[in-house]
C-alpha cells in the first residue's frame, strides 16, 4: 500500500489536493493546518493554528511530524503558502522540493517541470528516499472522493520570529480563466491603465474574458495576478486567444499556445507573437481596436 501525505492550509484547496493525491497512492493522510478534517483524505491530522503567526511558521514542526510518521511522499499545492511550506519542510528533510507540472508513476516516480521560461520541459526521476512535490494546477487528475474522514488532533508549536500583523482580503471577483472559451490578452502595448477599456469593450463584443501579460499584473499592477498568463501565471486552452500589444515572449506563449486559434495585434511587424498566430494585424492598437469593436 502506498501512502501519500499532503500538507493542507485551507479547506477547499486542501480537499482538492487530497483528491489529486489519490492518483499517486491508495491512502491519503493530511496534515491539516487550520483547515479542519478533509473529506477527501483517509486520515486528517488536525492542527490548531495560531492567528498570530503565518501558517508557514509551523513548517519545521510539520517536517518533524512527517519524519516521525515515516512519510515518504509529501504533496503541497503550488500557492505562495504551499510553496513556502514545501521548501521549508523539504529542507528540514534534507531534500529539494520538486515542482511538478506533470507526474508519471511507473517503477520510479518521474516528474516534469518547465525550464527556461517554458522553452523546454525537464523530466526528473526522484532518487531520494523522501520526496516533496509542489503540485501545479492540472498536474494530477483529481478523483472526487469522500472517505471515512478519520481525524486525529495533533499539537504543533510554531517557530518564532514572524508575527502576522494584518491580513487584507483582496477585492474583486475571482476568475477562472481556464474555463473561458474566448480570451483577450493585453500587454505593455497599452500606454495607460484607462486604455484597457478599449480591450474590455472588445471583450464584451466577443463574449471574452480579459487576461494579460505578467508586467501588466506584476509591475504596473493594472490587473490582478490571477489574470496573467504564462509560465508563472495561468495556462489556458480557449477556442480563441487574442493578444493585443503583447510581444510574444516564450514565458507568455507557454500559457496560451494550446489555444485553438491565436490572433495578434501588434505595431511591430517583427514581434515574435506573429510567428505563433493564425491571424495577425500589424498596426497601432489605438487605431485598430475601435474599428474592430465597431465592425463586430
Amino acid at each position, binding site marked *: 500500500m502506498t501512502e501519500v501525505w499532503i500538507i493542507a492550509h485551507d479547506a477547499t484547496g486542501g480537499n482538492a489536493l487530497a483528491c489529486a493525491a489519490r492518483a499517486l497512492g491508495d491512502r491519503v493522510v493530511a496534515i491539516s493546518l487550520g483547515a479542519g478534517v478533509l473529506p477527501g483524505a483517509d486520515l486528517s491530522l488536525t492542527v490548531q493554528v495560531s492567528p498570530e503567526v503565518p501558517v508557514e511558521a509551523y513548517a519545521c514542526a510539520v517536517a518533524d511530524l512527517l519524519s516521525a510518521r515515516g512519510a515518504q511522499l509529501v504533496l503541497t499545492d503550488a500557492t505562495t503558502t504551499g510553496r513556502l511550506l514545501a521548501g521549508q519542510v523539504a529542507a528540514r528533510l534534507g531534500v529539494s*522540493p*520538486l515542482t511538478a507540472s506533470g507526474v508519471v508513476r511507473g517503477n520510479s516516480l518521474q516528474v516534469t517541470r518547465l525550464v527556461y521560461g517554458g522553452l523546454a520541459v525537464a523530466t526528473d526521476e526522484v*532518487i531520494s528516499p523522501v520526496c516533496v512535490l509542489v503540485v501545479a494546477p492540472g498536474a494530477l487528475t483529481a478523483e472526487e472522493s469522500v472517505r471515512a474522514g478519520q481525524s486525529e488532533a495533533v499539537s504543533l508549536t510554531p517557530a518564532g520570529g*514572524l508575527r502576522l500583523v494584518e491580513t487584507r482580503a483582496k477585492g474583486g471577483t475571482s476568475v477562472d480563466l481556464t474555463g473561458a472559451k474566448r480570451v483577450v490578452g493585453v500587454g505593455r502595448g497599452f500606454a495607460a491603465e484607462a486604455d484597457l477599456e478599449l480591450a474590455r469593450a472588445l471583450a464584451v463584443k466577443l463574449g471574452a474574458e480579459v487576461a494579460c501579460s505578467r508586467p501588466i499584473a506584476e509591475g504596473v499592477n493594472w490587473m490582478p495576478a490571477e489574470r496573467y498568463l504564462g509560465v508563472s501565471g495561468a495556462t489556458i486552452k480557449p477556442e480563441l486567444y487574442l493578444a493585443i500589444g503583447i510581444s510574444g515572449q516564450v514565458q507568455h506563449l507557454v500559457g496560451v499556445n494550446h489555444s485553438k486559434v491565436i490572433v495578434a495585434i501588434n505595431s511591430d511587424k517583427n514581434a515574435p507573437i506573429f510567428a505563433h498566430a493564425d491571424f495577425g494585424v500589424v498596426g497601432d492598437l489605438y487605431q485598430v481596436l475601435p474599428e474592430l469593436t465597431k465592425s463586430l
Partner: protein
Amino acid sequence: MRIVACIKAAPDDADITVGPDRSLDFTRAQPRIGAYDLNAIEAARQLADQVGAEVVGISVGAAEWDNTKLRKDALSRGLDSLVIVSGEPDADSFQTASLLAAAITELGECDLVLLGAGSSDRYAQQVGNQLGALLGRPTLNQVNAISLTDSGVRVERLLEDAEQVIDADLPTVISLTAGANVPRIAGMKDILAAGKKPVTQVSGQPVAATARLVSVLAPEQVDRRRQVVEGDPADTAAALAAFLKSL
C-alpha cells in the same frame, strides 16, 4: 549592518535555440543575471542606503562568472562586493541553498538575506525558502514591499486572495516579487566603479541531488496559419472582424 543579495546567472533564454530534435542549443546564449534577481539587488541597495549598510552579492555558479562583463553588470547595479561560490548552475534548490547557507555562515554577521522571485532557468521559487530553513531564520516568500523597523522588518506579502502584513525579526530571509521595485539601470559611473569592487571566490561542500535529470526537451510546436495583414487600420480591422466571424 550587512545585507546579502542572492543572484544567479543563467543563459539568456532569448538566445537559446531549439533544434529539430527539440533539444536546446545554448551556443549563442550569454550568461545573464536573472531578471528577478535584480529586484533583490535593488531592494538590498535601497535598504542599505537608508541605514548605511553594506550589500554583498552571492552567487553559486561556475565558469559563467569568468565573464568580466557579467561581473561588472552585477557589481554596477548596487552591490558593494561579490562572492562567487563554485557550484553547479544546474544544481537543485537544496544543493544551491546548502552552498549559499554555508557561504553566508562563513561571511559572519548578515542581518537580511534577499532573493528574487525565481531564477530565470529553473524558476522553482524555492532557493530562498530552503535557505531560510537551513539557516534556521524566519523566512518569507512573495514579499511585495519591505521596510526596516526598530527591531526587524515589516513586509507586505502577496497571497492568491489576500495581502498579509508581517513583522519579521532579524536576521531573516526574504524572497521578493517581481513587482517589489524597479531595478535601476546602471550609469557609466557605476559601470566604471564596478571594475574596482572586490570579488571573492569560495568553494563549498556539495550535497547529494534529490532527482536525476532524465531529459530536457522543447514541447512540440503547434502549426499556425500565420496570416498577417498590414495597412489602413479600418481595412485591417475589417479583415480581422471577417476572420473572427468565420470561426
